[in-house]
C-alpha cells in the first residue's frame, strides 16, 4: 500500500524523461511533459485523498547504503498526507498552465527545443517534493531535498540568457546550499544523539541493522524526550535556520524576491506555493523528534513570524514588479504560518490544549490556503505580464476589461490573501486569532504577551496586505491601460485561464467550507499538538466558522438584493456614460493615473527607515520645466546591507591567500622546509 505512493512520483519522472528524450520534437515532448505531469499529479492527489480518508500511518524500510547510515525508508502519516495534497494539486494545475505558457512562445525552434529539459526538471521538482515529505531517513530526505533545490534552480534559470536570471540562480543556489549545510549538521546531531554516538557501532557501518540505520527518522523519534533532550535546543535552532532558508524567514529570505520573478510563472507558482512549504514541513517533522517543546521555541517562532510577516508585507508594498511583490508576500505568509505554529507550541509548553489546537490548526490550514491563493496570484500575474508585455505594474492597467476571467481570478486571490471574509485566507487567520485571544485569557503572562504580540502583528499585517493588494489589483487591472500593449492585451487562451479559475473556486470553497476543513485537519492537529481530543477543542471554532459562512452568504445575498434593487430603481431613469470626473482639467491622460509607487508612497514613506527606497531622477523646476524623470525601486535591504557585505568581506579575506602562489620557485621550496620545521618543533619539541 505504502509502496503504491511511490507510483505517482515514478510516473512523474517517466513523463519527464519522455519529454527530455523527445526534446528534439518539441510538440511531442511538450505534450508528453504536460500531460504526464498533470496525469501523475492528479493520480497522486486522488490517491492521497483516499489514503487520508482511510487514515492511519504506514512505513516501509529496506536497508540501503548502510555504511553512510542510510536506508530506503518511506512513510505516510497525516503530516505527509497533508503536505502531499498541495504538492500534487498545485503541480497538476501548474502543469496545465505551463502547457499554455511555454507553448505560447515557441516561435523559434531553438526556444521550443528547451521545453523538453524544462519539463524534465518540472517533473523532477514535483517528484522530489513528494519524496521529501515521504522520506523517513535523513540521507534519503537530504538527497530528495537537494534534487528539489537543483531542479528548481534549473527552472529558475530557464531564460539564462538574461543576466538577471543568472544572478538570481547564483543567489538561490548559494542560499539554499548554506541552508542545506545547517540541515546536514542538524540531522547528524540527531543521528549522533539517537544512536548514542556509539563509535564502534558506526565503525562497523551496519550498526544494528535490526532497529534500522543510524539516520532513520524512526531512530530519532524513538529517542525523543530521552536522548534528544540535551541537543533539542540546538537541533531546533539548526532546523529553524536550515529550513527557514528554504521557507524564506527574514532575513534568510533574500533569494525569494530574486528567484520567483526570474522563473517562468508556472514555476514561480509551484515554488512559492508549495516548495517553500517543504521548509515548514521540515520544521514540523523535526519537532516530532524533539519531544515536549520548550517555551522559548514558541517565542522564537512567534517572533520570527511577526518579523517576517511585517517586513515581508512592507517590502511587498514598495515593489512595482508584480512578481517581486508576490514573492515578498510569500515571506509575509510564511510569517503568518510561523506565528500560528509558535502559538501552538506555546500552548503545548504551557499545557493549554485549546491554544495549541487553534494555533496549529490555523498555521497548518494557512499552509494549504497560501498554496492556493499564492499559486493563483502567480499564475494570474504571469498571464497579466505575458499579455501586458511587462511585470511592471506601472505599465499595465485596465486589464480587467480585456481579460475578464483572469481578472476575476486575481481579484479573488487578492481578497483571499488579504484575509477578507469569507475566503480561505480569513479562515486560517481567524483560527490563529482565536488561538492568540485564548492565550490572552489564560493566566500565563508570558504566553499572553506572545499572544498579544501575535495579535498586533497579524492585525497590522492584514491591514497592510489589504493596502498592498488593492494596489496590485487596482493599478494593474483597473483604470485606463497605460501602454498600447496593455490596451491590446487579450486572454491568453484556455490553458492559462482554467487553472486560475480552478484555484479561485478552491479559495472560495474553503472559505465557505471552513468548518469541514477544520474537522478534516483535526487528526493532524492532534498528532502535532499531542492532544488526542483536538477535535473537541476545535469545536467552538467550527461553530464560529459556520456562522462566518452564514455571514458570507448573507453578504452575498444582500449584495445581490441591493444590485437588483438598484436595477429596479434605475429603470426608466436616465443612466448615462461619461468621462471620469477630471476636476475641470482639460486633457486627462492615462499616464496621469496614480501609479503603484504613488499609491504606496504614504506607507513606504512611513517605513522609509527600513525600506531604504532608492530614488533617482531630477525634480521639476523652473517656470517652463524641461523634461524630468523620476524612478524609485526598493532592492532588498538585507541582501544589500547584510549579506553582500559579509560575503564580499569573506571573499576578500580568503582571496588574500593568493599571495601564497606568487610563482617564485625558491620560496615554494622554502614552504616545504618551513612546514617541516614547524612540524618538527610542534610535534617533537
Amino acid at each position, binding site marked *: 500500500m505504502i509502496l503504491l505512493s511511490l507510483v505517482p512520483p515514478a510516473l512523474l519522472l517517466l513523463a519527464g524523461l519522455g519529454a527530455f528524450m523527445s526534446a528534439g520534437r518539441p510538440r511531442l515532448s511538450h505534450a508528453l511533459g504536460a500531460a504526464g505531469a498533470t496525469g501523475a499529479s492528479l493520480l497522486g492527489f486522488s490517491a492521497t485523498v483516499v489514503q487520508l480518508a482511510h487514515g492511519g500511518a504506514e512505513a516501509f524500510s529496506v536497508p*540501503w*547504503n548502510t*555504511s*553512510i*547510515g*542510510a536506508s530506503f525508508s518511506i512513510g505516510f502519516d497525516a503530516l505527509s498526507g497533508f503536505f502531499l495534497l498541495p504538492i500534487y494539486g498545485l503541480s497538476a494545475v501548474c502543469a496545465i498552465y505551463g502547457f499554455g505558457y511555454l507553448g505560447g512562445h515557441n516561435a523559434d525552434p531553438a526556444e521550443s527545443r528547451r521545453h523538453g529539459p524544462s519539463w524534465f526538471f518540472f517533473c523532477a521538482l514535483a517528484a522530489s517534493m513528494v519524496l521529501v515529505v515521504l522520506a523517513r531517513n535523513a*540521507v534519503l530526505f*537530504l*538527497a530528495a531535498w*537537494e*534534487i528539489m533545490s*537543483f531542479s528548481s534552480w534549473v527552472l529558475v*534559470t530557464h531564460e*539564462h*540568457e538574461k543576466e538577471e536570471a*543568472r544572478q538570481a*540562480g*547564483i543567489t538561490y*543556489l*548559494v542560499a539554499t*546550499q*548554506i541552508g542545506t*549545510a545547517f540541515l*546536514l*549538521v542538524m540531522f*547528524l*546531531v540527531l*543521528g*549522533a544523539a539517537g544512536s548514542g*554516538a556509539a*563509535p564502534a557501532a*558506526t*565503525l562497523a*557501518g551496519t550498526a544494528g541493522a535490526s532497529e534500522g540505520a543510524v539516520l532513520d527518522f524512526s531512530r530519532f523519534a524513538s529517542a525523543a524526550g530521552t536522548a534528544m533532550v540535551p541537543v533539542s535546543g540546538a537541533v531546533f535552532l539548526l532546523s529553524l535556520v536550515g529550513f527557514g532558508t528554504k521557507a524564506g524567514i527574514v532575513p534568510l529570505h533574500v533569494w525569494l524576491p530574486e528567484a520567483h520573478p526570474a522563473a517562468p510563472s508556472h514555476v514561480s507558482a509551484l515554488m512559492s506555493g508549495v516548495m517553500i512549504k517543504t521548509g515548514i514541513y521540515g520544521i514540523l517533522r523535526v519537532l516530532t523528534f524533539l519531544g515536549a517543546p520548550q517555551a522559548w521555541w514558541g517565542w522564537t517562532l512567534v517572533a520570527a513570524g511577526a518579523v517576517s510577516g511585517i517586513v515581508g508585507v512592507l517590502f511587498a508594498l514598495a515593489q512595482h514588479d508584480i512578481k517581486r511583490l508576490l514573492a515578498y508576500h510569500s515571506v509575509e505568509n510564511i510569517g503568518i504560518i510561523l506565528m500560528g505554529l509558535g502559538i501552538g507550541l506555546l500552548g503545548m509548553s504551557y499545557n493549554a490544549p485549546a491554544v495549541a489546537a487553534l494555533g496549529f490548526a490555523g498555521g497548518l490550514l494557512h499552509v494549504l490556503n497560501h498554496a492556493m491563493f499564492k499559486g493563483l496570484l502567480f499564475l494570474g500575474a504571469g498571464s497579466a505580464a505575458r499579455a501586458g508585455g511587462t511585470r511592471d505594474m506601472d505599465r499595465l492597467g485596465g486589464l480587467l476589461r480585456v481579460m475578464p476571467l483572469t481578472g476575476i481570478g486575481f481579484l479573488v486571490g487578492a481578497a483571499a490573501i488579504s484575509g477578507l471574509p469569507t475566503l480561505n485566507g480569513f479562515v486560517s487567520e481567524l483560527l490563529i486569532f482565536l488561538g492568540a485571544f485564548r492565550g490572552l485569557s489564560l493566566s500565563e503572562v508570558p504566553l499572553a504577551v506572545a499572544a498579544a504580540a501575535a495579535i498586533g502583528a497579524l492585525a497590522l499585517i492584514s491591514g497592510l496586505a489589504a493596502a498592498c493588494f488593492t494596489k496590485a489589483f487596482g493599478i494593474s487591472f483597473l483604470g485606463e491601460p497605460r501602454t498600447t500593449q496593455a490596451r491590446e492585451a487579450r486572454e491568453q487562451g484556455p490553458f492559462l485561464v482554467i487553472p486560475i479559475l480552478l484555484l479561485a473556486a478552491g479559495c472560495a470553497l474553503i472559505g465557505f467550507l471552513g468548518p469541514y476543513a477544520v474537522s478534516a485537519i483535526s487528526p493532524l492537529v492532534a498528532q502535532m499538538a499531542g492532544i488526542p481530543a483536538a477535535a473537541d477543542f476545535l469545536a467552538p471554532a467550527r461553530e464560529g466558522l459556520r456562522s462566518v459562512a452564514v455571514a458570507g452568504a448573507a453578504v452575498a445575498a444582500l449584495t445581490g438584493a441591493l444590485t437588483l434593487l438598484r436595477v429596479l430603481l434605475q429603470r426608466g431613469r436616465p443612466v448615462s456614460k461619461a468621462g471620469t470626473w477630471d476636476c475641470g482639467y482639460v486633457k486627462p491622460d492615462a499616464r496621469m493615473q496614480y501609479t503603484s509607487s504613488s499609491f504606496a508612497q504614504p506607507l513606504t514613506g512611513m517605513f522609509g527607515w527600513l525600506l531604504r527606497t532608492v530614488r533617482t531622477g531630477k525634480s521639476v523646476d523652473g517656470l517652463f520645466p524641461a523634461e524630468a524623470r523620476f524612478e524609485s525601486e526598493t532592492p532588498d535591504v538585507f541582501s544589500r546591507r547584510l549579506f553582500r557585505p559579509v*560575503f564580499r568581506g*569573506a*571573499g576578500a579575506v*580568503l*582571496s*588574500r*591567500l*593568493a599571495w*601564497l*602562489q606568487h610563482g617564485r*620557485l625558491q620560496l*615554494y*621550496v622554502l*614552504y*616545504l622546509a*618551513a*612546514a*617541516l620545521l614547524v*612540524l*618538527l618543533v610542534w*610535534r*617533537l619539541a
Partner: protein
Amino acid sequence: MILTLILLPACAAFAAWLIRSNTIRRGLLLSVSVIHAALVTWLWVDPSRFPPISAWLAVDALGQVFLGITSLLFLAVSFSAVSFLRRESGTTRSDPEEGFLFDNTPEALFSACLLGFLSTMTLVTTSQHFGLLWVAIEGTTLVSAPLIHYHRHHRSLEATWKYLLVCSVGIAFALLGTYFLAAAVPAGGINSMTLRGLVENASRLDTRWLKAGFLLLLVGYGTKMGLAPMHTWLPDAHSEAPSVVSALLSGALLNCAFLAILRIFSVASAAGLAHFGRETILVFGLVSMGVAAGLIIGQPDYKRMLAYSSVEHMGILAVGIGLGGLGDWAALFHAVNHSLIKASLFLLAGNILSVYGSKKISDVRGALRSVPVTAVLWVAGFFAIMGAPPFGAFSSELSILRAAVESGSWIMVVVFSLLLAAVFAGMVSVLVRTAQGAGEVRKTKEPTLSLVAPLSLLALSLILGIFIPGFLDRALWRAVMLIGA
C-alpha cells in the same frame, strides 16, 4: 600475476617508444589499458589468483582499492588520450593564449611515458616495502615530467621544472624519512622494511625516530599528494599539462601519494602513535581546504580552479583520516569518488579548451549553447564535485561530516562546513558564468570519443551515489581495518 600487472605496461612503454606508426601505437595504448583493467577486474573478483610475490610485492585491501581506481581511470583516460592525440598530432601549433608557435612532444615518447606512468603507479599500489614504495613514487615523478611538458613552450616548461624541483625536494624528505624509519628499527631486529614486518614489531620501534620519520614522510609524500602548503606545484602542472594528463595526475597520482601516507600511518598507529598521526594529518587537511578555498574564489582560470579543487579534496581526505573511525571509510570512499569526478571534469575542461581556445573563465560563455553535451556533463560534474546528491561525493562528504559531529568537536564541524560552503560559493559562480548565458561560439560538433570517458566516469560516480555495491563497501571496510585504529 602481480608482476604481469607491473611489467605489461612497462614493456608496452618500450614498445611504444620504438613503434613508428601512430595507429599501431594508439592501438597498443588502448589494448594495454584494456588488458590491465581486465586483469585488475579479475583481481577484484578473485584475489587468490594474485598471490604475493614476496614480502615486498603484494596486493592487500588498500592496494586493491587504489589499484582499482588507477586502472579504471587509465582505461577511461586512454580513450580520451587517443582522441586527444588525433586532435593534437599536428606538428607545429600556435599557442591560443600568447600566439607563439610551438611543437608537441613526439607522440612516441608521450605514449611511452603514459604507459610508464601506469606501470609505476601500479608498483606504488602493490609495493609492501617502504624502500620500494619510495622508488615507485620517485618513478612516477620521473615518467610524468615529460607528460606535463607535452606542449613544448615556456609555460609548460616552467610548470615541469617547478613540478620536478618541488616534488624532488619533497621526495628527498621522504627518503630521509625512510632512513629515519630504518633508524627506528632496533639494531639486530627485523632485518627488513616491509610493511608487515614493521607493523608486527611496531611495539619495538624507537618512537623518537619513528615520529621524526613519520613527519618527514608526511611532508614528503604530502608534497606529491598536494597538501597545502606543499601544493604549489599542483596548479601549474595541472593547468599546463594536456587535460588527459591532468586527469591522470589528479585522479590517480595524488591518490598514490595518499596511499603512501596511509602506509606510513598504519605503521605509526600500530606503534601507538595513532592520535599523534591523526592530529597532524587533520591540521594538514584543514590548511589545504582553507588555502584551496581562498584560491578557488575569484580564480580566473578554470583548469587552475579544478587543480585547487583537487587540493581541497585532498584536504578533505586528510580530514577524514584525521578524524578516524567512520572518517577512514569515508576518506577512502571519497578518494574513489573524487578520482572519478575530477578526472571527468579535467577531460571535459579539455573539450571546452579545444572549442573556446582559452583557459580563461571570462572567455567561456554559454557552453550549454555551443557544446551542449559537454556542458551538461560539465554542470553535472561541478555539482558532483561540490558534493551534491545523487553523486557519490555526497555520501562520502556526509560521512566525513558525520565523523566530525560524532567526534564532538564543534570547531571542526563549523570550520569544515564553512570551508565547503566557501568553495561552493566560489565554484557556483564559475559554473554559471561558463555554462549559461547566450553562447558566443556557435554550436560545434563534439567528437564522441572525447565524451565516452567523462560520461562513463560521471555515470559511475552517479551509481556509487545511488547505490554503494556490497563488494566495494566490504573492500573499503577491510582497507579501513588495515589503516588501523
